[in-house]
């Protein structure tokens, strides 16, 4: 650390740092920003081998960034585009599909009289743009995305969500006779960009038709994950996956899971980030 011109202490300012303090702070600044920039670079879609090696091998780098909630690339993309996910591109590379979309949790709640009541959970919906809605959307988004990647974590998440729903709907006793069913459903929306091959009137008609659809209509939703949950005779919670990444409920021409057939139109969706 080369010597610097230290301003003389005056009654108008607090004491300046000593040379040793400045040296120490400078060293810590270098360490901090080195860790930060390596972490950022390593999290981007195309890190170099050096970035990856530094991120994985420099002692303390990952724990430091994890601890301070800085282990991210900060590439906040408002459209929920995920550069790491090749499935977001259509075959011809011209269409884009966001990972995070809007989700609905539909539950068949067994009743004491043996009937089934179907509800959307949570029963009391969140306010528009509330942080609670965003958080739940993120949770279900992770679950659905993991299930589409055949990751076993999807099942773990789905089971804890089902357990919570059972507690809130208080259907534990009834589930001993008839299991509770939880369907995690992705909301579908066709892309609405103007088609240059159509006339403005035709484009407007397509737009009007799209938005005239009922967002809760069964034709508008695609089941991504389904769980059956029940209590055993010993009041132990049990759950099982009924089917994963099913597209049977998808309407004709609607988008499918990333690994499935390509859609005729590109879906849009609501974001789950905040």
């Amino acid at each position, binding site marked *: *650390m*080369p010597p*610097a*011109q*230290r*301003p003389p202490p005056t009654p*108008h300012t*607090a004491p*300046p*740092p000593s040379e040793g303090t*400045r040296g120490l*702070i*400078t060293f810590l*600044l270098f360490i901090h920003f080195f860790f*930060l*920039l390596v972490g*950022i670079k390593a999290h*981007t*879609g195309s890190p170099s081998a050096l970035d990856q090696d530094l991120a994985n091998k420099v002692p303390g780098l990952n724990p430091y960034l994890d*601890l*301070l*909630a800085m282990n991210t690339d*900060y*590439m*906040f*993309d*408002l*459209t929920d585009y995920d550069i790491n996910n090749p499935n977001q591109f259509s075959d011809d590379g011209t269409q*884009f599909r*966001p990972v995070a979309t*809007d989700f609905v949790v539909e539950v068949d709640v067994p009743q004491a009289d043996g009937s089934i009541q179907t509800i959307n959970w949570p029963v009391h919906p969140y306010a*528009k*743009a509330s*942080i*609670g809605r*965003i*958080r739940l959307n*993120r*949770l279900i988004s*992770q679950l659905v995305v*993991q299930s589409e990647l055949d990751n076993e974590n999807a099942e*773990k*998440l789905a089971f*804890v969500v089902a*357990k*919570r729903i059972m507690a809130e709907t208080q259907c534990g006793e009834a589930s001993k006779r008839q299991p509770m069913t939880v369907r995690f459903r992705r909301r579908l*929306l066709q*892309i*609405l*960009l*103007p088609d240059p091959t159509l006339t*403005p009137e035709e484009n407007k008609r397509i*737009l009007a038709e799209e938005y005239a659809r009922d*967002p809760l209509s069964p034709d508008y939703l695609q089941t991504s994950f389904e769980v059956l949950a029940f209590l055993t005779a010993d009041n132990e919670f049990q759950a099982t996956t009924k089917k994963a990444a099913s597209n049977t409920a998808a309407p004709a021409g609607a988008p499918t899971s990333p690994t499935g057939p390509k859609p005729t139109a590109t879906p*849009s969706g*609501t*974001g*789950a*980030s*905040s």
Partner: protein
Amino acid sequence: VSGSTGYISRASARFAAAWNEFWFAPSDPLPLAVLRIGVGLLATYIVGSYGFELLRYFGPNGMLPVETIKDVSGTTRFSFLDYASDAASVYVVFGVSMAVLLAFTAGLWTRVTSILSLVAYLTFFHRALILTGWVEPVVAMLLLYLCVGPSGAVLSVDAWLRKKNPDADRKARLPSYQATLSLRLIQVHTAIIYFMMFSGKSHGNFVWWNGNAVWWLIARPGATLIDLRWLYDWPYVINFWTTAIVFFELAFSLLIWNRTARPLLIVVSAVMWTLTALLTGLVPFCTAMFVAGLAFVSAEQWRSLFGKDGVAAGSASWPAVPVVER
């Protein structure tokens, strides 16, 4: 050889002087105090919003059991909530966290509560890692750097309590290198975030480059705060708006360091983030980004904005000291 040596020597000396000026020249704590209030309110809102669903997420039958979160996120991060095994202890952790965050926002025992606020905030961040989006890391960054400087020197309960001891009060308000250090860390990190946001949009994300990204946001059901679908008939407006967002992020990260461009960029950021909040519904995130950008507003600018007397009547009078223009 001697010419080269002389050049290196002069360059080193200039760099060292610039470095010391940038990080260690004393500055007024007022901008930090303003940031403390904004960041404190944001952090209180983010943690407080868990209050309506505390047991749904963190309770004994909650949706975020420690083991599941560990498996899903692939990492273990410390959180006091991991030790809250029943509903009562979850409520205690939440209550203490809220009390700490409110004290920090008000500027009570700020040196201690700034650090405790970071711990409280990270307790919820780490446990609810899979629920976090974009606002949480930004607020975490701001809370961390506010621990470094005297953010409670003015506009705080601490300043009000110090009125009985004028000498201590005067000393606490003096421009200090800690205030500069804290502010500079926020500024540099904020500029990095803006640049990475630009980079994310330019790095192969063609919906931002072909000018249609804003329409993607407008078309999402239930997300936008106002219905902007009428812009379907105005594709050039959509293209311009999309491009404006991308280039604003680039401009902010680079030109914010220019004193002439700085006020303009701050004003544009207010407009840009308000429109983005309407467009995306991501009000906390847009607010956090705007608040982070306020780190570039100098003490003099804050004074001229609010008026000396108006703030003095609140909790503290302005320090009668020379102000270093940041």
